[in-house]
C-alpha cells in the first residue's frame, strides 16, 4: 500500500517514526512544539511525544545549536530546527567551528549524532534574507553531512538515515516543496546518505539537480523529449557524502552535462561537481559542461523578479537546446 502525502507531512512523519523508535531522539526549535512549526512541518509531535521531547525554545539560535551539540555529547540524538536556513548565519560558529570540527579536534573522543533541520530555498517571495539556498555553506565545511531531499519519500527515508547517522547532518527542507505531494509506502522507511537517484534516463544529456530544482529538471526533460532530446535527470539528494559514482556513470553514458542550481553562481555545489567531472571524466564529454544557476545576486522579493532569477523550466530547456545545437 502506498499513500499520497505532502513534503511537509513527510517531515512530521519522519520525525515521528524516529522518535517512536528511539527515545533519545528529541526535537527543539522556535515554535516547533505547540504551534507545530511555522511551516507546519511538526504538528502533532508535541501531543504524541510530550513536552519534554518536543520543546519550544527562545529565539536564540546559538543556544539552540549549542544545546543540541552538548546534548549529543551526553547521550541524546537531538534534532534542532532552524526556522529559515538564512538564520544559520547567526549560529554559524556553533555549526562550522564547533559541531563540524569537534570529532576531529578530539581525535574521535567526542561523537555528535545530531541533525539540524532547516527550511531552505526560494520561490516564495520572501526576499533575500528568507530565501537563500545555502547547501554550499555547509558543503564547504569538513565534518558536516549535507542532505537536501526533493520528494516526500526521500524526506522520510533520508531524515531517518540522518537521525540514525553517527555524524552531524544539516538537513535542508525546501520551502517551495512543502505543498508538493508524493507517494510513500506504508511502514518504516529508512534510506542511505550518499546515494543519488537517477529519476529519468535518456542518452542525450545528463541534468544534475537538487531539491526544488529536481521537479523543474524533470519537467524540462519532459519538454525536451517532445523535441527529440532525451535527458537523464539525477537527483543528488545528498551533497556530503557525494555519490560521484552515479554522477560519473551517467556522464559516461550521455557525454553532456548540465547542473541546475538554485544557489547564486559562485562556489555553488555544481562548481565542485563539475570540477570532479573535468578531472575524472573529461574524455567522456562531448561538449563543455554548463551550469544553470541563479545569478550571483541576492534574491529579489517580487514574484516577477524572483521567477526570472531562479532557474526555470524554460531556461533549462533553452540552455540544453542551445548547447546541443
Amino acid at each position, binding site marked *: 500500500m502506498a499513500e499520497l502525502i505532502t513534503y511537509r507531512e513527510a517531515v512530521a512523519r519522519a520525525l515521528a517514526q524516529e522518535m517512536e523508535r528511539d527515545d533519545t531522539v528529541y526535537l527543539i526549535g522556535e515554535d516547533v512544539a505547540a504551534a507545530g512549526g511555522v511551516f507546519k512541518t511538526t504538528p502533532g509531535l508535541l501531543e504524541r511525544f510530550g513536552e519534554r521531547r518536543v520543546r519550544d525554545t527562545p529565539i536564540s539560535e546559538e543556544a539552540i545549536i549549542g544545546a543540541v551539540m552538548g546534548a549529543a555529547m551526553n547521550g541524546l540524538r537531538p534534532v534542532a530546527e532552524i526556522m529559515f536556513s538564512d538564520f544559520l548565519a547567526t549560529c554559524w560558529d556553533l555549526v562550522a567551528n564547533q559541531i563540524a570540527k569537534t*570529532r576531529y579536534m578530539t581525535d574521535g573522543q567526542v561523537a555528535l549524532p545530531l541533525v539540524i533541520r532547516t527550511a531552505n530555498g526560494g520561490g516564495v517571495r520572501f526576499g533575500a534574507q528568507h530565501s537563500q539556498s545555502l547547501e554550499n555553506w555547509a558543503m564547504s565545511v569538513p565534518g558536516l553531512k549535507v542532505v537536501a531531499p526533493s520528494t516526500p519519500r526521500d524526506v522520510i527515508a533520508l531524515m531517518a538515515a540522518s537521525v540514525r547517522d553517527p555524524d552531524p547532518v544539516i538537513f535542508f527542507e525546501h520551502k517551495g516543496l512543502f505543498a508538493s505531494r508524493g507517494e510513500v509506502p506504508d511502514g518504516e522507511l529508512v534510506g542511505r546518505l550518499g546515494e543519488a537517484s537517477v529519476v529519468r534516463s535518456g542518452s542525450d544529456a545528463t541534468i544534475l539537480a537538487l531539491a526544488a530544482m529536481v521537479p523543474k529538471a524533470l519537467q524540462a526533460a519532459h519538454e525536451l523529449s517532445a523535441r527529440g532530446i532525451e535527458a537523464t535527470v539525477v537527483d543528488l539528494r545528498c551533497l556530503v557524502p557525494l555519490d560521484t559514482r552515479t554522477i560519473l556513470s551517467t556522464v559516461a553514458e550521455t557525454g553532456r552535462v548540465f547542473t541546475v542550481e538554485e544557489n547564486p553562481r559562485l562556489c555553488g555545489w555544481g562548481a565542485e561537481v563539475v570540477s570532479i567531472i573535468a578531472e575524472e571524466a573529461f574524455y567522456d564529454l562531448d561538449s563543455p559542461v554548463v551550469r544553470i544557476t541563479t545569478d550571483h545576486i541576492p534574491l529579489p522579493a517580487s514574484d516577477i523578479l524572483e521567477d526570472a532569477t531562479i532557474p526555470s523550466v524554460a531556461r533549462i530547456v533553452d540552455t540544453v537546446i542551445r548547447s546541443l545545437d
Partner: protein
Amino acid sequence: MNVAVGAGPDVDTRLRVYRMMLEARRFEEFAHQLFLEGLVKGTSHLGIGQEAVAAGFAAAMRADDLTFCTYRGHNHTLLRGAPPGRLMSELLGRSEGVCGGKGGSMHLTWAPTGAMGSYAIVGAHLPIAVGSAWAAVERGTGQVAVCFFGDGATNIGAFHEALNLAVVWDLPVVFVCENNLYMEYTPIGSVTAVERPAADRAAAYGLEGLLVDGNDPDAMYETASDVIARARAGGGPSLVEAVTYRHGGHSRADPGTYRPDEEVRQWLARDPIPMYRARLAGAGASEERLEEVDQSVEAWIEAAVEEAKAAPEPTVDSIATEVWADGGSRWRN
C-alpha cells in the same frame, strides 16, 4: 567579596586542593619552559595565577560531572583527570597526545573523565554546556555541567542566550566567569556597561550574582560545593564571578606590559599557591605533609615531561582520520 567563608574545608580536602593547584602551576611552568626550548609550538594561554578557581571547582565535582573551559584550559583539563603525560604530549603535538596532536593547546579534551573540551571561540561553549546539562536531566544521570569562561565572554551573545535558556529550562549547569580583569590587552572595565561583568548581569536572568575571591581556594571550593549541590538537587543554574589575575600576558606572544606595575605587584603578592600553603601550615597541615606534597608533585611533573618528550611524533597517516564516526574522512564514493 560577597561569599562568606566559614571554617573552611577539612585538612585532607585542603591538601588535595593545594596539590591540585601545584600540579596545575608546575604543568604550566613546564609548558612554558618547553615552549622556550622550541618543543611546544603555536600558541598557549596560561592560567598561572588562576589555579584556585580550577582546583576549587575540580575538587568539588563528582567524577562524572562535565567540564567545559576555554583555550586557557590546561589547568581545568588536567585537574578533571586528563593524564598529564598525554596532556603535555598534546602540547608537543605528539601522537600520544590526548587529541593525537590534532587539538593542540587550545583544544585540550579528555572525555573519559568529563573534560569535555577547551573552546577557542569566545563564548561558544556556554550553550554547549547547557545542552550537556539538558541531556543529563533527560537521561536522569545526576551530572552537573560546569562551564568556565573569561570576563570578555560576558559581552558576547552566546553568554546571554545560554544563561537565559539554562534558567528557562532549569538546568544543572554552573557558569563560572574567571574575571582576570583583562580580555587580551584591553581591561574589561573599559568596554563593559556594568562594574561586575558577570555578577551584575545575573539579575537579568533571575539569578543571584555570586562574587568570589578567585585567589582563595577555600572560597572557591565552598562556593563550588554549594552551587554544584544546588544544581544536582534540581535547584537550577548558578552564575559565579571569580575575581582573579593571570600572572603573565594573555598568550605567550604577550608580555603583558599594558598592566600597571603596581597592579601586577599587588596581585603577585596574592599568588594563591604560597598564600594557601601558609594558610594550611597555620591550620593543622604539618610542614612535613606540605613538603611531601611539594616533592611528590615535582616527581609527578618530571615524569609527565619525560613521557611527553619521549612520545613519538605523529605519522602523516593520522591526518585524515576521525573526521567521521567511521574513523575516516571520505566525502564521496
